[in-house]
């Protein structure tokens, strides 16, 4: 705590900035007394709250979960303890009132989530200043925020001009209706459900949404005829600015899709049902070309660009090949748009092992198979100058902001007739929260710090489900908006609960990194 220089300006700044219209300045009258008493008390209170948050979120939970009762008995509990904001006591819930009456300490911090409890109110209080610190600590693990530093650099004069600008914006724009929340269905234009599910997952992707709503690609400034990115821009506008609640007609997307001349996706452009994953790849490439450096993202090469699609979806894979003869190691790095996970072998192996139980895999099983276990291959070693057995290890070198996972639900059966494709119906359980650290190059080599661990946590964002047979069927999707899940079945949008989402037979999964959200 002492290491951190006391910056009287920083807590003061929080207060000065605080009078936001529409929110009270303090969480309750009592916090107001505490924080507006004198600058010293304010500073020490806020610093101490920060320290408690650090104890709670960075240190071993054993510390904050262990309390000493008044009779000297030391207990570690699973349920919340209360950390006194005015002294170093850690108390179980029962002791809190006693401590408060004895010492007149009235503020406590919940040991499991860092929330502030006011004993006068006998309630949790959500003070804007302190809550801001807590949220930031939980999200990114640090209190500082680049934006804030940026703001501080501005002199007051610039601040005034920002205010002026705000006034200008208020006077010259109309706010979108409160109804426009981006929840609309998309009509099926005749076997286009494979497009709709991908479009919905793009629409509810916060990164893409912010890009398009902040005029990342203005359709009025773009002169490319039948530009798909313009069509996306129009669609985002229609979803987030209009009050309409009926379905959306993705006519421009569709015509852009028909007009687009991409050799690789030529056979995708038909009136027939198609693969949603292929459409996802198509859309990603097309939008990359419209927004990025225009180079074709060649798979297999380490191509990187700063377009929104690359920033959102692309990560890097590392393939390490170790020669079994000389031990020489070659590394190859390639960028990826999504992770394709095979189910076929895993399902077969597992059903042999446990033939009776109903087959069910977890997403982690599939990831383990692909990115932790190594496989063998033939390889021409430069050192040995001959063809050798080699071991290959795959790992993820750079995680994307939005991780897209495809579960390969198709296999070719060597049946009596020709090789016919069939669908793998194996249930794959996937978590709402996914830690990717074990699959990264760094996670496999180093012992991971809590910070690194936190930066690899992903939250489920949307799920694309396929029902029906391999050659015909229907796509539906689930997307999360805030904490609420919605199911999208073409033009029909319904509320969905988590169990429905997790019980679905997922084909595509989109996870978003937590530290960003």
């Amino acid at each position, binding site marked *: 705590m002492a290491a951190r220089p006391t910056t009287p300006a920083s807590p003061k700044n929080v207060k000065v900035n605080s009078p936001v219209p529409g*929110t*009270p300045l303090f969480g309750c009258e009592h916090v107001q007394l505490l924080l507006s008493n004198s600058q010293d008390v304010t500073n020490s209170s806020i610093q101490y709250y920060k320290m408690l948050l650090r104890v709670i979120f960075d240190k071993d939970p054993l510390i904050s979960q262990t309390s000493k009762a008044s009779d000297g008995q030391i207990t570690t509990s699973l349920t919340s303890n209360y950390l006194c904001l005015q002294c170093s006591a850690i108390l179980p819930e029962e002791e809190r009132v006693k401590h408060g009456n004895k010492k007149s300490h009235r503020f406590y911090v919940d040991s499991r*989530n860092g929330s502030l409890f006011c004993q006068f109110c006998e309630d949790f209080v959500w003070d804007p200043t302190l809550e801001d610190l807590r949220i930031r600590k939980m999200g990114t693990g640090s209190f500082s925020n680049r934006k804030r530093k940026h703001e501080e650099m501005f002199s007051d004069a610039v601040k005034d001009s920002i205010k002026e600008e705000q006034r200008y914006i208020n006077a010259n724009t109309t706010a979108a209706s409160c109804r426009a929340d981006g929840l609309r269905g998309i009509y099926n234009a005749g076997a286009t459900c494979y497009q709709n599910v991908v479009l919905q997952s793009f629409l509810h992707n916060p990164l893409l949404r912010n890009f398009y709503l902040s005029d990342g690609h203005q359709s009025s400034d773009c002169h490319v005829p039948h530009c798909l990115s313009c069509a996306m821009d129009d669609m985002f506008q229609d979803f987030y600015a209009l*009050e309409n609640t009926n379905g959306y*007609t993705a006519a421009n997307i569709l015509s852009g899709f028909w007009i687009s001349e991409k050799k690789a996706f030529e056979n995708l452009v038909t009136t027939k*049902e198609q693969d949603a994953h292929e459409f996802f790849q198509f859309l990603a490439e097309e939008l990359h070309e419209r927004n990025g450096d225009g180079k074709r993202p060649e798979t297999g090469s380490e191509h990187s660009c700063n377009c929104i699609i690359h920033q959102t979806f692309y990560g890097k894979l590392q393939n390490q090949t170790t020669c079994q003869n000389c031990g020489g190691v070659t590394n190859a790095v390639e960028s990826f748009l999504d992770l394709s996970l095979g189910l076929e072998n895993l399902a077969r192996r597992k059903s042999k092992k446990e033939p009776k139980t109903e087959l069910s895999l977890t997403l982690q099983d599939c990831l383990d198979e692909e990115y932790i276990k190594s496989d063998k291959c033939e390889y021409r070693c430069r050192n040995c100058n001959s063809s050798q057995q080699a071991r290959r290890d795959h790992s993820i070198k750079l995680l994307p902001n939005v991780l897209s996972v495809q579960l390969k639900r198709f296999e070719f059966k060597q049946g009596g007739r020709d090789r016919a494709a069939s669908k793998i119906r194996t249930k794959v359980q996937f978590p709402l929260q996914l830690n990717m650290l074990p699959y990264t190059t760094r996670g496999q080599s180093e012992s991971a710090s809590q910070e690194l661990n936190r930066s690899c946590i992903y939250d489920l964002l949307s799920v694309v489900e396929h029902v029906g047979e391999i050659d015909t069927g*229907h796509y*539906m999707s689930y997307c999360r908006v805030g904490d609420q899940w919605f199911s999208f079945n073409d033009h029909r949008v319904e509320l969905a609960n988590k169990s429905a989402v997790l019980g679905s037979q997922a084909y595509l999964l989109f996870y978003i990194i937590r530290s960003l959200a």
Partner: protein
Amino acid sequence: MASSMNSGKAGVINAPDDAGSMDQLAHAVVDDLLYNIVHDLLVKVHRDEKIARAATAAIRVEKLASDASDSSTPDARPDVKVETDAAIYDEGKVLLKGNPLITTKDIVCPRCHLPRLLYPTDGKGARKPDPSIIYCKKRPYIDKPGYDIYGQTWVAQGPGRGKKKKDMEKKVDPNTPADSPTPASEGANTGGGGAASRPPNMLSFPSATCSKCKRCILVTRLNNHMGSCIGNSGRNASRAAAQKISNGNANGNGDGTPPNSQKGTPLPGSRAASPKKRDGDEMDEDEATDNDAHKKKKLKPMVASVNVNKKLIVKPKVGAGTKKEKAQKNDDDDGPTVEVAPKKKITKVSSPAKKLKLGGVKPLMSSPLAKSNGKVTVTSGNTGDDAASESSGTLSSPPAA
């Protein structure tokens, strides 16, 4: 932990009295975890609710303050002190009085400052809203089987609209569970074709404009239409190719008939649309235009083929340089000599207007056509000029081939 209690904090999961100490510990752990889960859920809901109510108190008192100060600059912070039951406004600062969960009973939207409707109007947990209050437009989502989150439902896609049977099965299957609660009403609609019998929140499928031929297509057929209009699929494509070849070879000769028959072929969708089975109003309009065009085209080839040939003999003389262009123009305009001219003008107008205009113009045009040949030649002459004058401008996007 494993003290004298044989349960955790929640006290829900109790170990039997004769359980061993490990057993008791396990029960206590599960019980504590249950307590934590409930605690976390409650804290989250509590936080959302309390912050929203505190904001409500703040917004209310700010409103009062700005009313009290009635200064000319609305966004400047008035230097007044106003007090409500829930908050104090003091020189730009809002200070809470008491616990907002007790002092404030409802929630106003932080953006539009209208009260939020707190219960859905239909389905699970529904309550009747107070009709005298104007609520914020963001409403709780409706959870009702067969209806979407806004309480809307759709006219089911029934058979008999030019859909292949296979398509139908495919499309309806996944929907059936959701649709099943309202089969009666939907059945009535498709059968009777009465838009009036439909509940107000039941929507029909809209139409969209094809970006290439600017025709209005029912959304469910859009993909198929684009396939034949833009993409090279469908039988029209082969005809288009045949047409191109014939145009390239002989200007005047072979072009009279093939385009006609092609034009006469209706859109893939509109073919089987039998009027009595239609249901949507928009669709009615839409198909009406389609059907009209269809009927007219069926009429015309007989009349027009005569005229067109006549005209085509005249045409080449007019402009020798642009002969091919114009001929082609006329080919495209083909039988519709009568019909296409208005259409052309209209393509320049925005699409909704186009639909209306087409509807209005048609009866005018079709009646002389039916009456006598003499009149038609006049109109066809006009359209010919029209087409010629416009040919340079619109050549890039000829009517659908």
